[in-house]
């Protein structure tokens, strides 16, 4: 152990020996800043996705990730400035790249078993998320933050051009960030998965550690040591990535998609939530309780009198469009934003393309707006979720008006909704819906509308009275519920969905982190 430490000390010493060559400006400072900053943003995007299967996706997780990365970057810039003034040199830069590569490899190692790293359950949920995020990503963010000031320092040799040099290197760093964001979001995660992406970052940084070393050309001991260390870490990184056992059948641009099978029923989960149950014998059979509520409301309203045309906001397991096609000779337009979810439904959940189901791989709101003007629906089904939250642009008064304009005069708008704790979101949602539709009914979902952190409901809205079912919540009860607390009118200008659902996210995080089994709900 001591000999390793001594060797490392000697390596640092050799690599950081001040020497004219060491102070030579980098050949392509912009390229180094570009790749370094790009790596940080790749890590940032991957970070949110790495913690999603454990912690879900909410205001808390994304804020933690952004906060930790920016805080690390900020601290890193400050430290990097001091390092740059204290010991400007390409060898310093090389060591900082090496350390960043090691820190990224470490994050990869830690991400293999997130459960084992959880903070004490007595901590508040926000702190627990912050703890896990910081544990993995604070160190690489700090180290990557130290790099730009050192590059700037190496490139500055006159006060006259400081603005230009700083601006140019900063611009290169920012361009690297852009490429990092786009590449990771659109391409890298869905092609390779989150862990190989982090491994790739570590490898890129290790390569920069070797490339930036000024002694490399003459094969001094310092350069050889840095190269050796980089090679060892690189091997370790590749090993980690190769042995990772992913819980997802597919990591799409949006979710970790999971499929499990339980006595003839396939269960589709997206991140932490169960989004659908599909019977292998009859994929058109609603099994999920909220879909059974949809079924009973639609049967009570229309019976089998005529073929139904419908629009589904979100496809998921595609159970309900298949049900409508089979039992109501229906035609459905389904807006499912995640192409991979649709592909998994085709490959594993028995979804067969038929003229009865039009699948459009886009966001539901522009799709609904741009449908041919004469196309009207008997039923519009709300079934889109980002974690447990309905995306905010699908709950506003303006969107409700759009839905109303697309419904036949007696048409039904049925929405699956998740809320809990003080039910402020559900209350505000119904309050807003009532501004557009004269009749709004709340249906309980058997077994899932009880207390606890999160409960599932179905809300129905129409211009005509809605049918009662066994689980209708009576108007008097509904009015009392609405009057209990303040309801916010949700508009495109002001739609604080995450904040209204914050108590539910917090409670659920607390339960999942303390090991309490949670029941998934969603669609």
């Amino acid at each position: 152990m001591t000999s390793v430490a001594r060797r490392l000390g000697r390596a640092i010493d050799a690599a950081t020996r001040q020497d004219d060559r060491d102070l030579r400006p980098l050949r392509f400072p912009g390229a180094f800043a570009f790749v370094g900053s790009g790596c940080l943003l790749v890590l940032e995007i991957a970070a949110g996705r790495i913690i999603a299967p454990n912690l879900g996706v909410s205001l808390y997780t994304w804020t933690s990730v952004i906060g930790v990365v920016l805080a690390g970057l900020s601290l890193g810039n400050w430290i990097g400035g001091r390092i740059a003034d204290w010991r400007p040199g390409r060898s310093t830069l090389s060591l900082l790249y090496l350390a960043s590569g090691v820190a990224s490899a470490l994050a990869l190692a830690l991400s293999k078993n997130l459960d084992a790293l959880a903070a004490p359950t007595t901590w508040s949920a926000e702190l627990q998320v912050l703890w896990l995020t910081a544990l993995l990503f604070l160190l690489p963010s700090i180290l990557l933050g130290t790099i730009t000031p050192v590059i700037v320092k190496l490139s500055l040799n006159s006060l006259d051009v400081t603005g230009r040099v700083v601006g140019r290197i900063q611009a290169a760093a920012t361009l690297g960030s852009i490429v990092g964001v786009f590449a990771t979001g659109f391409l890298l995660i869905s092609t390779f998965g989150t862990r190989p992406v982090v491994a790739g970052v570590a490898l890129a940084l290790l390569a920069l550690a070797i490339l930036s070393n000024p002694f490399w050309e003459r094969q001094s001991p310092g350069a050889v040591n840095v190269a050796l260390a980089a090679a060892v870490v690189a091997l370790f990184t590749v090993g980690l990535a190769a042995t990772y056992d992913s819980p997802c059948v597919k990591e799409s641009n949006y979710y970790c998609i999971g499929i499990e099978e339980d006595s003839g029923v396939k269960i589709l989960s997206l991140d932490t939530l169960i989004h659908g149950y599909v019977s292998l014998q009859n994929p058109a059979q609603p099994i999920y309780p909220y879909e059974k509520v949809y079924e009973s409301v639609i049967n009570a309203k229309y019976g089998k009198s005529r073929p139904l045309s419908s629009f589904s906001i979100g496809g998921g397991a595609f159970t309900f469009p298949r049900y409508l096609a089979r039992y109501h000779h229906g035609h459905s337009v389904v807006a499912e934003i995640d192409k991979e979810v649709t592909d998994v439904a085709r490959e594993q959940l028995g979804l067969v393309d038929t003229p009865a189901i039009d699948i459009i791989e886009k966001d539901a709101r522009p799709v609904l707006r741009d449908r041919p003007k004469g196309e009207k629906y008997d039923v519009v089904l709300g079934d889109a979720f980002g974690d447990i939250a309905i995306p905010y642009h699908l709950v506003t008064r303006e969107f409700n008006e759009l839905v109303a304009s697309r419904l036949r005069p007696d048409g039904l708008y049925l929405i699956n909704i998740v809320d809990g704790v003080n039910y402020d979101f559900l209350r505000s949602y119904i309050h807003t819906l009532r501004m557009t539709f004269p009749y709004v009914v709340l249906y309980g979902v058997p077994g899932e509308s009880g207390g606890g952190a999160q409960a599932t409901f179905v809300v129905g809205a129409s211009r005509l009275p809605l049918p009662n079912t066994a689980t209708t919540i009576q108007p008097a009860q509904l009015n009392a519920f609405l009057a209990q607390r303040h309801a916010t009118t949700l508009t495109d200008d002001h739609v604080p969905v995450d904040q209204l659902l914050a108590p539910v996210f917090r409670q659920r995080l607390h339960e999942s982190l303390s090991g309490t089994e949670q029941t998934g709900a969603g669609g």
Partner: protein
Amino acid sequence: MARPRWLILPIGEPDPRDSRPLRFPGVFAFLGNGCLLVLELVAGRVLAPTVGVSLYTWTAVIGVVLAGISLGSWIGGKIADWRPARSILSLQFLLSAGASALVLVFDSNLDSVAAPFSWPTIWQVVWLTTLVFFLPSLLIGTITPMIIKLALTSLEVTGRVVGRIRAAAELGAIAGVFLTGFVLIQAFGTRSIVTAVAITLAVLGIIGNPVWGVALGRARASAEQSTGGD
């Protein structure tokens, strides 16, 4: 005494008083960058009714804002070397305020400036995001290089000064993200938040203008004169 024109617009001969370091450069970097991140976070809300919320919208927003900062940093660096001046910094803040206010104008007419329906989704999103958010990002991006330039007085400490101002700017970014995510979106509407950003930038532009330093200097000089005369 005629008021020197460089106080308001950088015309004519540069005046050494105009390139004096800012009193609190970190505060200016903090608030300027904070404003940009506030805009970035509400951008998703501004665009959602027209183009929805998807990976495309968020990526386009992040990409357009970063591209704006990037180009802005580059242009800002050139401007700073060409003429390091507080009057220019003041102008940069005021223009940024104007560009942020433009977001409000676009917000009321988004559907009418949307790209043709025939374009692929991604280009529709990128088009609209660029139209609305590129200019404010670019202009705010030009600010930090000028602040750094004004603060740099010796080559010995470049690392420290650049590091400190960058750190302040990034702290501002963090504050902007957290404040918007946890407080502003809940408490206020999108339009009010954008208005507040424009006002903050305008105030920074006014405070950063060297006219105050000159006025104070004059007041101090005349005060000294009058006490000296007693």
